[in-house]
């Protein structure tokens, strides 16, 4: 069996598509796209940051600025603190998922995938619905204690940022560390026990050292996500907090200080690429020989009151954490809790569809040119175009990389580069590069789909690649030997195998585009706001009606994303390991 497997594996790479297109030909379109829409904008940003012939003067002055330093410092420490808190919540969970069997585990695992796909605006709206001044907790406490002002001041504080980051990234720790831990041979730890090590010393001297690389990798990935956090800081942190991302946005949109924004973008790019290089090195070390075995032998039932209590507590916290903000959001969109503007006296609280009905009304004082509900259409259209574009580019790229040529190994990291570039930087690059001839795309309906495609492209390639690599020449030969014509082979072998992955990739691209906020915040034209932009604007405006409409739109977006996620989960082969 083993021998056979190795033999097959060697054959995988070559020959699968040899008869049709050559690998380099397939890469022309994807590389042209990256050159034009990734490298060219970044080059423009670099040019702008270097100023007009005065060398590094702009750079120097921005870097010397106290404000810049305080932003970098804040970006770093909030990311570090968020990472520590995420580990504190995630590591016990990883242990629980890795070493125990319990009812509802699959459901819990599926639920932990939610944050990974939820758009930041939805999460921000969720935390607002739960903890904001108009949220359930505050209004409930006000009612209960007869207070005039909201007692909880979580929103617009560092706590909101930390909570949201934990919400987002605990999944990464659970999946990365949990999956690794589940496959770690328990006999290694048992051997330590029989050699006289107490449970604590075993954890300290055997289990942790073995897990250290994967914990480091997970922590670094979490740190990268926290470091490049944009929507969470902008929407939940309020005006007093700014990460590099938020600073780039504000310099561009609020102060129109493009050279400063350019310098900050370059700074951000250097930081993230540096972090990613370290992460890649670490991840490579994870392949070091380690005894692994199937999770079925490593897992046991939860027994004893102590185990039951601790695991129950963790599951309860995790469930509350995952479900509460989103549940609060959906419920809040259908419940009237406080007075609208201009409403006086006793107000009737209760179930209402007002916020949804308001979405169809184009009020005179509205800041939209159309009804809010039309933003759903705008986002759907963008997402559709993004799917088409990213598949058109991702399919040939994956087909080429699947053949593991020497060139492919050089191109692969280049294709992954946009993943290491923050969305705000991409948006800013687009503003600088495509705002004037030769390529003025400012008014083009393709501008946002192009930016979204850039963000989605690495995910699409990563989803397609394994499926393509898994088609062994033998499968096709086998089908042919059994009498299938070439067309039939395509239909019976290639399509079912890549088709599923293609659907997953499309769903990924669609979800990313629907929720994309970083690049969109910079690029969306005022008259064509996307769904997340509309939610952002509603959240920023005063009044119960605006808040309610933000809740309603967020709930709609959450529903759309949830449907996509279900599609992805039901079609996915393997699990969320390759980020």
């Amino acid at each position, binding site marked *: 069996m083993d021998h056979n497997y190795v033999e097959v594996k060697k054959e995988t790479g070559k020959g699968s598509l040899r008869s049709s297109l050559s690998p380099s030909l397939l890469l022309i379109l994807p590389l042209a796209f990256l050159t034009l829409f990734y490298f060219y904008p970044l080059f423009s940003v670099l040019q702008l940051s270097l100023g007009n012939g005065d060398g590094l003067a702009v750079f120097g002055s921005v870097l010397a600025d106290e404000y810049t330093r305080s932003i970098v410092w804040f970006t770093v420490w909030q990311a570090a603190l968020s990472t520590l808190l995420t580990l504190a919540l995630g590591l016990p969970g990883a242990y629980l998922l890795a070493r125990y069997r319990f009812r509802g585990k699959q459901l819990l695992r599926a639920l932990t995938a939610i944050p990974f796909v939820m758009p930041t605006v939805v999460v921000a709206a969720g935390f607002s619905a739960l903890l904001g001044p108009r949220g359930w907790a505050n209004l409930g406490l006000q009612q209960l204690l007869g207070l005039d002002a909201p007692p909880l001041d979580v929103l617009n504080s560092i706590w909101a940022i930390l909570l949201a980051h934990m919400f987002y990234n605990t999944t990464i720790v659970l999946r990365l560390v949990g999956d690794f831990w589940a496959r770690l041979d328990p*006999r290694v730890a048992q051997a330590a*026990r029989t*050699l006289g*090590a107490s449970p604590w010393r075993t954890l300290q001297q055997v289990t942790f050292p073995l897990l250290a690389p994967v914990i480091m990798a997970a922590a670094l990935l979490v740190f990268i996500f926290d470091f490049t956090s944009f929507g969470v800081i902008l929407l939940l942190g309020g005006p007093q907090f700014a990460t590099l991302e938020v600073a780039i946005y504000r310099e561009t949109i609020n102060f129109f200080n493009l050279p400063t924004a350019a310098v900050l973008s370059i700074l951000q790019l250097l930081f993230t690429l540096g972090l990613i290089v370290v992460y890649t090195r670490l991840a490579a070390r994870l392949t*070091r020989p380690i*005894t692994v075995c199937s999770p079925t032998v490593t897992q046991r039932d939860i027994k004893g009151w102590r185990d039951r209590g601790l695991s129950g507590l963790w599951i309860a916290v995790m469930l509350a954490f995952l479900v509460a903000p989103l549940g609060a959001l959906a419920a809040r969109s259908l419940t009237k809790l406080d007075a609208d503007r201009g409403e006086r006296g006793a107000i009737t609280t209760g179930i209402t569809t007002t916020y949804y009905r308001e979405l169809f009304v184009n009020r005179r004082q509205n800041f939209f040119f159309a009804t809010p509900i039309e933003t759903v259409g705008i986002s759907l259209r963008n997402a559709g175009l993004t799917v088409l574009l990213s598949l058109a580019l991702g399919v040939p790229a994956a087909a080429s990389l699947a053949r593991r040529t020497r060139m492919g190994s050089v191109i692969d990291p280049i294709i992954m580069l946009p993943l290491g570039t923050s969305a705000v930087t991409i948006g800013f690059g687009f503003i600088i590069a495509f705002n004037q001839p030769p390529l003025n795309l400012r008014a083009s309906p393709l501008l946002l789909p192009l930016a979204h495609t850039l963000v989605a492209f690495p995910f699409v390639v990563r989803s397609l690649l394994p499926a393509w690599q898994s088609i062994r020449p033998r499968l096709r030969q086998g089908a042919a030997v059994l009498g299938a014509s070439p067309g039939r082979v395509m239909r019976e072998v290639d399509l079912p195998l890549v088709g599923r992955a293609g659907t997953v990739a499309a769903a990924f691209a669609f979800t990313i585009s629907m929720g994309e906020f970083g690049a969109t915040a910079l690029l969306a034209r005022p008259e064509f706001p996307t769904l997340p932009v509309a939610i952002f604007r509603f959240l920023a405006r005063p009044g119960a009606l605006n808040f309610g409409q933000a809740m309603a739109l967020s709930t709609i977006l959450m529903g759309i994303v949830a449907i996509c996620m279900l599609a992805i989960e039901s079609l996915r082969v393997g699990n969320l390991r390759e980020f």
Partner: protein
Amino acid sequence: MLTVKHISKSFGDTAALHDLTLSVEAGEIVAILGPSGCGKSTLLQVIAGLLTPDQGDIRWEDNSQLQVPTHRRAFGLMFQDYALFPHRNVFENIAFGLQMMGLSRPEIQRRVSELLQQVGLPGLETRDVNTLSGGEQQRVALARALAPKPRLLMLDEPLGSLDRTLRDRLLVEMRAVLQREGLTVLYVTHDQQEAFAIADRIVVLRAGHVAQIGTPQQIYQQPASEFVARFLGMNNILIGQLETCNSELCLQLPFGSFPIGESLALTSGVEEVCVLLPPASAELAGEGEGFVATVTSHAFRGSVSEVSVQPASGLPLQFEFGSNLAVPPIGSQIRLKLKMDMIVGLPDGA
């Protein structure tokens, strides 16, 4: 000494161990022998305290160990596939148990190099364990298990993943090491040759039950049941009738009737018995003696030749003859005589 008393352990609906009782005397090497899935590894894990039994007790010199956590039991366990710490080198692996005992650095160094000497790997202290060959890993694992001088050493299929030649060599070496250290040992294996070679006593396990306990000789010469006999590779198991012929008790088999000597431990008064004809229980007979059988195949096994024969009626039988004997060609008819004192009566239905 170790006493395992009425231990039961189930996983869900499947019982891995059922009312299992055995003991190991100080300085004794006891082998647990059984096919895979008979509960051998579970038993070791229960004794080590890595699993809690559903019922029963584990005692060391009259003290129950059930409430003693694994790391305080001082029972060493060498795992199948060794479970070496992949993040520690050879020295650090062997030193682990000594560090847990709180020994000083020079003491640890002395003991580790002494052990490496013993297992035949001197000077390998700084090697990465991931680069060791299978045999080297086995020796390091053995050294690691020996290092803290456990009062009981348990070995779980310690040679299981090695090839035949290496196994034979390591088996001899290991026995020497175990005897030199004067350890009390519980040795789990599915290989009867290994068990015979290393053990003072053997416990044969079947589906979580004790099928037989005895010295290697007892087990081989007097298998307690059809299961034990078949597990040891003895397949000449027949149903025979007891009857009186020529005024003595005879065993009526499909291919003949044979007078029973004193030694055949069959309960009189029973009419039908299950008997085992061990491989060595037949010899070539002269004209007019024994019974006639046709040779169907033979295999050379070094010191013996294994010959399969088909008697006039009934199932085919396998016997061993000294390999210096000229083996009759396939298809030829031979006459065989049974050595009645070697024939074993087996309890029914086992």
